[in-house]
């Protein structure tokens, strides 16, 4: 059996990628004519097939470094050659399992959540198309193929954020997500252009890795060229993974249906930036300066977003800022050279954040569309399953010991302190600074997540219009499975040498990148930090309990009043949107107005397009007098002309 699977991993990979595409095509073209049951069967069946194929492919991969399969040569132009090739290595195996596994659960959940939506088949078609693009992104052997998937997930994100496009605000949110991502994509493209020159035509990741291993050429450790290329690629990652300064689109992306937020804007697509850095770890590790910038960006984003999450009142907005914050952790992990830890957090986060979003969707479903946590409360009694799964995931994200978030977050924190670049002019204060920011963010995470939990599920219901009820089984079953994952996923990466299956599995992928970092840590430091994280997590939870549930419930309002301007600044998300509006959007629109008025309306429309016909018309209106249709007048003119000619010719 294993031999059979082992020999057919390539075929399985095509099944993984094309099953969701087939689902998207069937539902996209035939969907409106099919019965709901059939649409659900196709929509959920495709990711399940992909998941089974992914699991088999991963099983078949075990023990080998990578499996590659080529369908055909896509681009052949001079030295440039890009094949349509898929490439399965331990990292992409992990990713396809996350994408198809959590994707399947969220598709199943969607059959309950989207039940009754008039565009049911369009929803599943787009969601399947998203899975196709995401799997292509993850499995693409060439960076260019990765980019195709990268753009594909961006497109699907746009389509699904604006799924209810008859609401203007939602359509605008989709557009914003798309445009902000364009900025990042520009950086990614720029990086690829340079790399394709350096590589003389190949963008295959294994070839790139070999070139970096060989050294020489442009791939000089600490070189300026490598630094600029990796910075450009990192710009792409900040766009996709919602890091400062391009984080602004993700909170707005919550306009989409909640399962979309869970799948695309929490578990999978937004992690593409982290995946890309991890995929190119050998390249990023060449540029210590870039790595320092990556780490600082991640840590700053983690802290910054967590502080906003503390004051939001929309259940999905809290989770959105939480996602930005957790993505910050992953980027921080990648930035300090702990690629395995970053991807580990990516995996655990996919479980607990998908569970949290789906739980939020269940709550919103029960509250008949209401998302304001100030109007909720007491939902725990009415929705026991949602409450239990939400609690498990909240404990996991807060970093309570023995749950998945604890292990992954703690590993990032530890490696932030422990790892140093083996060479390169990077200041020693960066690690401790990042660590301090990440630790503060961990405290805030525990606090805002339990604020959310207490306000939603504890106490008494504050809305008098809602009649909450538990969601159907199609929604609670995925919640239970994801909550189980949120609790247990951490055990694949226990911080004990021989039991750390995760590091062992990913070692072949990250060994080149990790070799450029030296560890100054010790077990004492690691276990000490675990104690610190535990104290921080429990402290955050206790703080949240005291402030929003316990004896100090009057304090938050007073503190807000005392903080005054700063509180409003945080409430307004530090007015980053307003800043961009002032420095980018409005000047751009003013420029657009000027070019519209003078270049387009005047220069092109009035002068170039309407000018010639108007001139012809004007000349015609003058000349028309002569051509009045009177034949006799023409004849008279003819004779006069003849007479003049004769008078001139005859001497």
């Amino acid at each position, binding site marked *: 059996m294993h031999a059979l699977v082992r020999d057919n991993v390539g075929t399985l990979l095509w099944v993984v990628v094309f099953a969701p595409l087939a689902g998207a095509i069937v539902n996209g073209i035939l969907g409106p004519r099919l019965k709901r049951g059939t649409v659900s069967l196709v929509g959920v069946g495709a990711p399940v097939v992909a998941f089974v194929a992914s699991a088999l492919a991963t099983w078949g991969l075990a023990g080998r470094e990578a499996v590659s399969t080529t369908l055909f040569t896509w681009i052949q132009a001079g030295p440039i050659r890009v094949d349509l090739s898929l490439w399965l290595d331990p990292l992409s195996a992990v990713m396809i399992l996350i994408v198809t596994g959590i994707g399947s659960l969220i598709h199943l959940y969607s059959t309950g959540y989207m039940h009754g939506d008039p565009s049911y088949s369009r929803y599943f078609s787009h969601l399947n198309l998203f899975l196709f693009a995401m799997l292509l992104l993850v499995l693409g052997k060439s960076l260019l193929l990765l980019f195709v998937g990268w753009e594909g997930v961006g497109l699907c994100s746009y389509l699904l954020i604006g799924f209810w496009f008859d609401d203007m605000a939602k359509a605008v949110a989709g557009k914003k997500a798309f445009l902000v991502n364009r900025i990042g994509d520009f950086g990614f493209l720029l990086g690829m252009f340079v790399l394709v020159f350096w590589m003389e035509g190949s963008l295959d990741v294994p070839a790139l890795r070999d070139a970096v291993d060989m050294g020489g050429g442009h791939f000089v450790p600490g070189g300026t060229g490598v630094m600029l290329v990796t910075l450009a690629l990192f710009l792409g990652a900040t766009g996709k993974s919602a890091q400062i300064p391009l984080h602004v689109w993700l909170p707005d992306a919550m306009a989409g249906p909640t399962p979309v937020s869970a799948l695309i804007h929490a578990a999978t697509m937004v992690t593409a930036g982290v995946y890309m850095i991890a995929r190119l770890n050998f390249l990023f590790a060449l540029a210590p300066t870039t790595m320092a910038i990556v780490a600082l960006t991640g840590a700053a984003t983690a802290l910054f977003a967590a502080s906003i999450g503390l004051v939001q009142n929309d259940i999905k907005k809290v989770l959105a800022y939480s996602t930005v914050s957790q993505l910050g952790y992953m980027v921080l992990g990648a930035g300090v050279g702990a690629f395995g830890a970053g991807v580990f957090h990516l995996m655990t986060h996919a479980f607990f954040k998908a569970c949290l979003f789906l739980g939020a969707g269940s709550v919103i479903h029960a509250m008949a569309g209401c998302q304001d946590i100030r109007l909720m409360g007491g939902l725990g009694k009415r929705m026991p399953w949602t409450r239990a799964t939400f609690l498990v995931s909240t404990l996991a994200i807060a970093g309570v010991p023995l749950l998945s978030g604890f292990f992954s977050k703690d590993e990032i924190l530890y490696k932030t302190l422990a790892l140093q670049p083996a060479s390169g002019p990077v200041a020693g204060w960066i690690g401790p600074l990042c660590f301090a920011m990440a630790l503060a963010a961990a405290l805030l995470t525990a606090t805002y997540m339990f604020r959310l939990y207490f306000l939603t599920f504890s106490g008494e219901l504050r809305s008098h219009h809602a009649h909450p009820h538990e969601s159907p089984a199609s929604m609670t079953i995925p919640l239970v499975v994801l909550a189980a994952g949120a609790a247990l996923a951490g055990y694949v990466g226990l911080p004990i040498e021989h039991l750390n299956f995760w590091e062992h599995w990913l070692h072949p992928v990250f060994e080149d990148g990790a070799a450029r970092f030296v560890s100054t840590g010790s077990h004492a430091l690691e276990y000490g930090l675990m104690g610190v994280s535990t104290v921080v997590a429990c402290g955050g939870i206790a703080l949240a309990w005291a402030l929003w549930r316990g004896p100090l419930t009057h304090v938050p309002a007073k503190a807000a009043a005392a903080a005054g301007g700063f509180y409003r600044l945080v409430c307004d998300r530090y007015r980053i949107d307003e800043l961009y509006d002032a420095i980018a959007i409005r000047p751009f629109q003013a420029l657009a107005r000027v070019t519209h008025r003078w270049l387009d309306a005047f220069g092109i429309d009035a002068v170039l397009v309407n000018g010639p016909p108007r001139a012809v018309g004007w000349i015609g209106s003058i000349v028309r007098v002569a051509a009045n249709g009177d034949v006799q007048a023409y004849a008279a003119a003819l*004779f006069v002309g003849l007479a003049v000619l004769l008078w001139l010719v005859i001497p």
Partner: protein
Amino acid sequence: MSGVPLSWWLVLATALFGIGALGVVTRRNALVVLMSLELMLNGVNVAFLAFARARGDSLAHAAVFIVMAVAAAEVAVGLALAIALFRHGGNVDLDRARRMKG
């Protein structure tokens, strides 16, 4: 006949042509305009024949016959137009026929 000098013939031809041209330009009746056209053509014919005789070259006779044939065709077309005009408007006034434009 042979005693009449060339210049006299040319004066006659020019006079015929000029009278015809004046008629074409000034008259409003389509039939008169057609007749004036015939005058112009015949003025030209006279000039052809006068030069032919003066130069002793008979090739111009051929040209005259062509002109006559063309004139006959032209009269056929012109009269057909005049009849169509009459049926259309009840008269053959060229000034009124201008209204057909557009």
